[in-house]
C-alpha cells in the first residue's frame, strides 16, 4: 500500500514553442484514481502528460504531488511516452533488468524476480532473451510498458499505451492499471481508444485548440 497521495494541478498552462496548448487547467487526481485524457490529434494530450512528468515546465500555474516525500515530480512517476526506451541490442530481459536495478528498490521481490514477474504479467516471457530489435511493434510496446513494474511509484503517466496492442494485451495493460489504482496509485493515460479500466475519469482536451491547429 502506497501512502495516499494527490496530484494537484493549479491553473496550469503549458506552451509549446510560442503557442499555449494547455490553458489554465486545474485538476486534482486522488489516490486510486485513473484519469483518461482524450481529445483529437494535436489537442495537447502528450503536452500535458510531459508537463506532469516534469519534462515540460508549465508556463503558468503549479503542478505538485501532495502527501508524498519531497522528491520532485519526476521521481514520483513512471512516464512511458510514444517512445519505448528500449535498447535495440539488449534483450527484453536485459532491458528490464537495467531498470529494475537502476530505479530505487521495490520492497516485494529481488530485482531478478521482479523482471521475471513483469514479463509474465505482460505475457512476453517467451521473448525474454530476444534482442528488442527483433520484436513486432506490439511486443516492443509491451516491453516498454513493463518498465512501470520495475519500481513502485505512485503516479503512472502513459501516452497511448495500447496504440499498437492487440485486444488481449490491451486488457492486460488495463488490468495492470486497475491493480495499481486499487493499490492506491494514480494514473493519467492519454488515449484515443476506449480503455477497459475500472471507473476512469475522463478529461476531454480542447477540440477548440485542435481545430485551430489542424
Amino acid at each position: 500500500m502506497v501512502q495516499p497521495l494527490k496530484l494537484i494541478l493549479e491553473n496550469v498552462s503549458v506552451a509549446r514553442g510560442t503557442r499555449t496548448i494547455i490553458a489554465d487547467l486545474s485538476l486534482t487526481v486522488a489516490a486510486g484514481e485513473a484519469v483518461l485524457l482524450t481529445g483529437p490529434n494535436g489537442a495537447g494530450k502528450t503536452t500535458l502528460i510531459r508537463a506532469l512528468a516534469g519534462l515540460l515546465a508549465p508556463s503558468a500555474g503549479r503542478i505538485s504531488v501532495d502527501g508524498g516525500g519531497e522528491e520532485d515530480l519526476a521521481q514520483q512517476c513512471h512516464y512511458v511516452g510514444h517512445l519505448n526506451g528500449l535498447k535495440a541490442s539488449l534483450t527484453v530481459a536485459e532491458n528490464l533488468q537495467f531498470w529494475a536495478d537502476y530505479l530505487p528498490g521495490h520492497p516485494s521481490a529481488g530485482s531478478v524476480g521482479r523482471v521475471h514477474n513483469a514479463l509474465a504479467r505482460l505475457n512476453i516471457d517467451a521473448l525474454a532473451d530476444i534482442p528488442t530489435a527483433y520484436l513486432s511493434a506490439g511486443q516492443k510496446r509491451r516491453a516498454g510498458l513493463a518498465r512501470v513494474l520495475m519500481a513502485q511509484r505512485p503516479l503512472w503517466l502513459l501516452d497511448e499505451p495500447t496504440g499498437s496492442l492487440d485486444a488481449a494485451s490491451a486488457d492486460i495493460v488495463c488490468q495492470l492499471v486497475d491493480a495499481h489504482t486499487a493499490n492506491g496509485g494514480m494514473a493519467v493515460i492519454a488515449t484515443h481508444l476506449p480503455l477497459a479500466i475500472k471507473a476512469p475519469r475522463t478529461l476531454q482536451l480542447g477540440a477548440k485548440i485542435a481545430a485551430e491547429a489542424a
Partner: protein
Amino acid sequence: MSAFFTLLKRDLRLALRDGGALGTALGFYLIVVSLLPLGLGPDLNLLSRIAPGILWIALLLAALLSLSRMFETDYEDGSLEAIAAGPLPLELMAGAKALAHALTTGVPLVVITPVLALMLNLDLKAYPVLIASMGLGIPAISFLGSIGAALTLKTRRGGLLLALLVLPLYVPTLIFGISAVNAALSGPQGASSSFLILSAVSLVSLVVGPLAAAAALRIQMQ
C-alpha cells in the same frame, strides 16, 4: 552509488554489444595514422619527428567523433528521460556517461598507441611519456566532451557544432600533452611541470564537465 554503477555497467555493456563506439574510434585512429605516411611520403625521420603531435591529434579526433553519441542514443529512444527520472542526480548521470566514454573509447585508444607509434618510428624514449600523458589527458577529453555532447543533443547531426564547441576546451590538454612528450625527449626532468598542469586540467574537468553537462541536459529535455 549503486545506481551510478548500474548505469555505468549498462553503458559499458551497450558499448561492447554494439561494438561501434569503441570500434569507430579505434578504427579511425588506426586509419588516420596509416593514411598519414601515404600522404606525407615514407620519410621515417620526418614521421618520427611529427609522431607525438600526430598521435595526440589523431587520438583527440577519434575520441571527439564518438562524443556525439554520449547522450544521443538514449535521448532518441526515450531512455534518457526515464533515466533522468531515476534516483541519480543529473550530474552523476552525466558523470557516469562520461566515465563510460573514457573507458570504452579513451582507454582502448591509449592502449593501441604503442603499435601505431612503432609504425611511425617514434623514438623509444618517448613511449612511456606519451602513454602517460595520454592517460592523464583522457579524463579531460571525455568529461569536457560531455559538455559539448549535452549542448548539441537536439541539433541534428550536431557534429560540427560539437567539434567547434569542444575544440577550444581541448587546447590546453593538447598543448601540455605534447609539450610533456617533447620535454621528456629533450631532458630527463623536463616533463614534470607539464604533467602537473595536465593533471590539474583533468581534475578541473572532472568537476566542471558533469556540472555543465547536467545543466545543459536539464534544458534540452524540456
